[in-house]
C-alpha cells in the first residue's frame, strides 16, 4: 500500500523503479497540478495535456530532484516551465483562449457576467502573475513554496499575488 506514505518515501521508491510508487504520486498530485495548469492556461484540455507531459517529465528526471520532500513544488515548477514555453506562441494561446470562452458553460455560484469579467481579467494577467495567483490564492501554496516552484524571488511572488488579486477584484467592480 503506497497511498499513505510521504512523498519523500514514494520518490525514493520511484527512483528504484517502482511504478506503484510513481502512480501513487500521480494520484496524489494530479488534482492540484491540473487545477493549477487550468487556471494558468485558461483551457482545460490543454492544461490536462500539459499535466500529463509534466508527469512524464517528472518520471524522466526524478533522479535530479535534490530534496524528495519538496516533490510538490518541484513538480509544479516543471509544469510551470512547460506551460511558459507554450505561452511563447502567443497567437496560438489567444486562439485557445477564445475557444475556451466558447466552451465554458459557467461556474456554480457565479453569474455569467462575473465569470466573463474574471475570465477576461485572469487572461490579461502576465503569465507569471497568473501562476502566482493560481498557486497562492487557490492552490494552497505558501509564498515560499510558490517562489520555489516558479523560480522567482519571494518578494516578487508576494507582489504578483497582491496585484493579481487586486485586478481580479477590480473586475468584479471593487475599487482599489
Amino acid at each position, binding site marked *: 500500500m503506497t497511498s499513505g506514505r510521504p512523498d519523500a518515501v514514494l520518490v525514493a*521508491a520511484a*527512483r*528504484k*523503479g*517502482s*511504478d*506503484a*510508487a*510513481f*502512480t501513487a504520486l*500521480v*494520484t496524489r498530485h*494530479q*488534482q492540484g497540478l*491540473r*487545477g493549477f495548469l*487550468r*487556471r494558468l492556461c485558461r483551457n*482545460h484540455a490543454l492544461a*490536462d495535456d500539459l*499535466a*500529463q*507531459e509534466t*508527469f*512524464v517529465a517528472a*518520471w*524522466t528526471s526524478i533522479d535530479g530532484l535534490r530534496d524528495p520532500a519538496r516533490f510538490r513544488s518541484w513538480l509544479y515548477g516543471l509544469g510551470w516551465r512547460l506551460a511558459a514555453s507554450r505561452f511563447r506562441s502567443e497567437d496560438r494561446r489567444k486562439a485557445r483562449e477564445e475557444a475556451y470562452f466558447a466552451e465554458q458553460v*459557467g*461556474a*456554480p*455560484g*457565479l453569474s455569467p457576467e*462575473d*465569470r466573463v469579467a*474574471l*475570465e477576461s481579467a*485572469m487572461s490579461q494577467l502576465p503569465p507569471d502573475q497568473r501562476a502566482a495567483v*493560481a498557486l497562492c*490564492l*487557490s492552490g494552497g501554496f505558501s509564498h515560499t513554496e510558490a517562489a520555489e516552484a516558479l523560480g522567482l524571488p519571494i518578494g516578487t511572488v508576494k507582489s504578483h499575488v497582491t496585484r493579481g*488579486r487586486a485586478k*481580479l*477584484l477590480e473586475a*468584479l*467592480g*471593487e475599487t482599489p
Partner: protein
Amino acid sequence: MTNDDRLTAFFAADDAPANDPAFVSGVAEAVARRRLRVGLALSGALAVALGAVTWAIAPAMDDLGGVLTTPGLPVAALVVVLGAFGPQILRGITRLAPTRS
C-alpha cells in the same frame, strides 16, 4: 455573496476531479511509451557499440582463428554474452525494469 466568495467560485470551476483513474492511466501509458523509447535507444546504442567492438577486434580474432578450430566462434560468443547480459547491466543504471511495489 462577497467578492472573495466570487473569486473562490471562479477558481473552483477549474478544479479537476480528486480521483481520475482515466488521467492516471493516461500518465501510466505515456510513461510506458517513454520507457520503451528509452529502452529502444539504449538497445540501439548497445548494438552499435557491440558492432564497433566486433569490428575492432576482428583482426585479432582472425589471428586466433589459427589457434581455435572454429574461426569466428570467440566473436560470436562475445556478441551472445553481451547481448544476453548487456540489458541486465543497463537495467541496473536505468529504470528499465519496473518493480510492482
